[in-house]
């Protein structure tokens, strides 16, 4: 065999060897790929876990919103005389500002309408002069100041109640404070208000008492006035032959439904 022929033979073997090498992975390549895969999977599961807890936090916030809204609406639906706390709300902390009872104070509070040594609620956390007397009526009041327990059962898990919360997916504390609000217009010169209570302020707070976020309570607030009226109310007054007030729907007279 000539030198040239031997060289061609060697070159041919190298080509074959190169083809064989392109059809597989080296051990290093496999190891690197596995490492990347493991890292990626770890990241994925980490994200999945984190996202799982984040979604639960969002769900908890949604539940808190629903509970707060429902509580507020149920209080608004009460007769005016019943819109009052049925028992004295109690301050359970003087340090934890995320506890709604932190803003319960015993009067008097300077610069506020809380002028006696009664229990008052500071509805604006940033302003002590917002303290108002709690509307307390142990006879007619139908609003439990709380905290009352609200729960969300875990899927397919029995035994979650407001008194046994071990199997619950989420637990919340609901607070409802009713205060006597004096409208600022009553302080204007020449304005005479018939009563120190212009309307009642309802403040509902829902706090997550389970693990995880949200860590701050959600607050829902509105006013309720005594707007029933009786004979002074055109919509409730009746004459000898029935209601004297009706409504006009286009050109048609119809009963007023309200």
């Amino acid at each position: 065999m000539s030198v040239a022929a031997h060289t061609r033979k060697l070159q041919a073997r190298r080509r074959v060897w190169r083809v064989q090498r392109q059809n597989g992975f080296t051990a290093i390549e496999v190891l690197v790929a596995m490492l990347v895969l493991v890292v990626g999977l770890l990241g994925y599961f980490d994200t999945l876990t984190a996202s799982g807890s984040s979604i639960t936090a969002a769900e908890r916030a949604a539940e808190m919103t629903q509970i707060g809204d429902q509580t507020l609406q149920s209080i608004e639906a009460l007769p005016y005389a019943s819109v009052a706390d049925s028992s004295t709300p109690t301050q359970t902390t003087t340090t934890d500002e995320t506890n709604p009872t932190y803003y319960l104070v015993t009067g008097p509070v300077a610069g506020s309408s809380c002028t006696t040594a009664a229990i008052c609620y500071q509805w604006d956390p940033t302003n002590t002069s917002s303290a108002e007397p709690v509307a307390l009526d142990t006879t007619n009041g139908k609003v439990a100041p709380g905290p009352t327990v609200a729960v969300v059962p875990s899927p397919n898990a029995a035994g979650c109640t407001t008194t046994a919360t071990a199997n619950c997916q989420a637990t919340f504390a609901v607070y409802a404070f009713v205060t006597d609000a004096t409208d600022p217009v009553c302080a204007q010169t020449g304005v005479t208000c018939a009563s120190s209570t212009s309307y009642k302020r309802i403040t509902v707070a829902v706090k997550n008492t389970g693990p995880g976020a949200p860590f701050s309570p959600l607050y829902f607030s509105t006013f309720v006035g005594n707007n029933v009226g009786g004979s002074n109310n055109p919509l409730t007054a009746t004459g000898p032959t029935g209601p004297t007030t009706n409504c006009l729907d286009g050109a048609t007279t119809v009963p007023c439904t309200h």
Partner: protein
Amino acid sequence: MFALLILMALTIGMVGIGAAVVGAAHQSARESAADSASGAAAAGAEAALFRLNTTGATTSGTGSVGSNASYAYAVSMLTSPSDPCAGLWVQNSGQSLEQACITSTGTVNGVSERIEERVVAYTPAASLFPVNGLMAVNGFTAAGDVGGTFDLGSNGQMTFTNQITMTGQLEYPSAIPPNTPQQNECSGNCVPVAESTPISVPTLAASAYASAETSNNDAAVSWPAGFTYDPSTQTVTQSGVNNATVAFPAGTYYYCGVDLGGGTTSMIQTTSWPVKIYIDSTAGGRCTSGTGSLTASNGLSITNSSGVADNVQLYFYGDPPCTTSCASTFAVNSQSYDADVYAPYSSMTVAGGGTFTGVAVIGDLTANGALTVTAQGPSGSGATGSTATYYPAAHTDCIPPTTAGGTSGTC
């Protein structure tokens, strides 16, 4: 290559999950803010209604309910059925109504919710009390000092024998200036106002007395020993009664005459409110001419611990259309009352001193002792202007337009 594909899929999955997490959190926060904003909007509507009823003004306003929640409202009067507002146009077969529309927007963390409320009130009748204090229609005579915070008006001669220390307006006919024989002029806090035309005093319809005659709570009054209540004549007489206290619970009462006896501390004590006492003479069918007096031979007080004089109202039909020397129908020695008194065709004689809180219209008033008045008028009396009391009639949650600047929404 395979590993890269898996990594790409995982990355896409993670991004998707992350977006879902952020979206869910954002949606949750928005729903919470929207609910809080709805509450704030309702609070604004309630504040607007209270201020409308308190001041009668339709000014807009703003306020806070804490936790970053605020409201802004506007009030507009509705004048025709085509004016847009929640609900339907309200009408009444017997009385005119006033309607207003309250639009309130609550905002929490940039999320706003708006509501609209139609409110309705009876158009307030003209006040029976044209002066925020004391109106002595035909004439006023004071032998003692006249003080207090009130307006004093008359279409006749006013005579002040002693000091005038009152704070308020002294409204007299320009042709008949006050007679002040001791040169004790109305000055300082007392502001003289010469009226070029007589002060108009609205008339309470005789039907109001007839209605009280038909339906009243007279049976709820327990008259103490010594009194005799005759339901057939609607009169109360007494024999040897001194310092009696008669309790009147909330209700409407109708009498042709009441004699409360003697003693310095006779008392009409009101315990719940409102109390309306009609003393008739000829408006209804039961009383006869010459009746219609409420008397006590010495002192009399009408107590009212509600703090609102308007909660106790006394109406005397008197002797219309007398303009001078009306029959004496409310006469005592000294008296104090915390009530509104409407007696344009009656004479009131206070032989001693008098202390009054409320508003009054008297035909002729003679006070021989010191007279002190604190005006506390009902809505619409005198210079305070008429104020209607509105009540909610309809409510709607406004739906925002589906496109920016669109008109497909409501309110």
